[in-house]
């Protein structure tokens, strides 16, 4: 299947990160679902190819097996391991190396968190970790804030994609600064994938209308009343937003302009 349901008129360019062509512009997380079965059905409904996973200690009490690969077929999904929970560059690098040793791919969704309350990134540590991991051959997708200068520095540091937030992780506040996201997309050469903060389908649609290459989300789907239904809505919203971006919206103006001809009215 092609990456979207694009119809006549607009043709899209392929969504490529580090030479890999991806069939969906929607990436989804695998955390916080009520059950593995619900997670799989939501992933299917989302149409996502790239799914994120986290690295954690195995529970030595084998009665509590929380491994996600028992449910997730790695031949059907592209596993994108994250460094969630890491607060230093060295921790994030350690987690990235552990993930790579699992043997699936060289990609990492790099997070270096700077603050427990907001989960906003520590951009200095993020830059340092990006440099190190890129030099080790990792494909680094760097989770960052919506700051243009940091995004530019990340690209210079070797990030394969930059992932600015729409709003804080898990907040569901939607796209707080469309201007920043548009500017980042406009200025960067590497793909821009908005990560975190989307709350519902309209947020995803508005985000894609800014012209970004994709969106990554987790809580908006997992914490919905019906995650499978929301996953489907997000798939449609991402496609709709992308198509609207490609189609080019009309200019905004603060006056009314009639849609019907003024001429030909009855006397």
């Amino acid at each position: 299947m092609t990456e979207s349901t694009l119809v006549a008129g607009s043709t899209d360019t392929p969504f490529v990160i580090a030479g890999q062509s991806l069939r969906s512009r929607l990436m989804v997380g695998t955390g916080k679902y009520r059950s593995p079965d619900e997670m799989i059905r939501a992933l299917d409904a989302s149409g996502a190819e790239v799914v994120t996973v986290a690295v954690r200690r195995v529970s030595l009490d084998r009665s509590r097996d929380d491994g996600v690969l028992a449910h997730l077929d790695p031949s059907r999904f592209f596993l994108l391991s994250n460094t969630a929970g890491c607060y230093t560059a060295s921790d994030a690098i350690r987690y990235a190396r552990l993930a790579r040793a699992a043997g699936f791919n060289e990609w990492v969704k790099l997070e270096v968190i700077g603050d427990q309350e907001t989960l906003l990134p520590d951009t200095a540590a993020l830059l340092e970790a990006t440099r190190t991991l890129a030099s080790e051959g990792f494909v680094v997708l760097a989770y960052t804030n919506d700051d243009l200068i940091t995004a530019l520095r990340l690209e210079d540091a070797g990030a394969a994609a930059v992932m600015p937030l729409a709003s804080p992780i898990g907040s569901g506040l939607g796209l707080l600064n469309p201007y920043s996201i548009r500017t980042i997309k406009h200025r960067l050469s590497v793909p821009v994938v908005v990560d975190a903060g989307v709350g519902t389908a309209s947020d995803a649609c508005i985000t894609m209308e800014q012209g970004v290459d994709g969106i990554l989300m987790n809580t908006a789907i997992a914490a919905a009343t019906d995650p499978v239904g929301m996953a489907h809505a997000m798939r449609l919203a991402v496609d709709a937003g992308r198509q609207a971006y490609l189609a080019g919206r009309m200019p905004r103006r603060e006056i009314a302009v009639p849609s019907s001809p003024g001429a030909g009215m009855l006397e």
Partner: protein
Amino acid sequence: MTEHAVSPDGVIPVVNGEERAIAAGSTIGDLLRELELSPAAVVVEYNREIVRDRERLDSLVLATGDAVEIVHFVGGG
């Protein structure tokens, strides 16, 4: 826990942050078998060094105080 009643020749590595007694001469491979973990399903870090070649797991002999981390993928965003 019974495994802490170590025989005099047992060793106590620290596995995922917990002291865990095991027979002397045991390898990381033996530890994984004891935990019923498939080597293919986990990644092992031994004294801060990732064991990238899983075939080495059966030749790394555990000693008291060794730090072993056994990780896998869980759901995350």
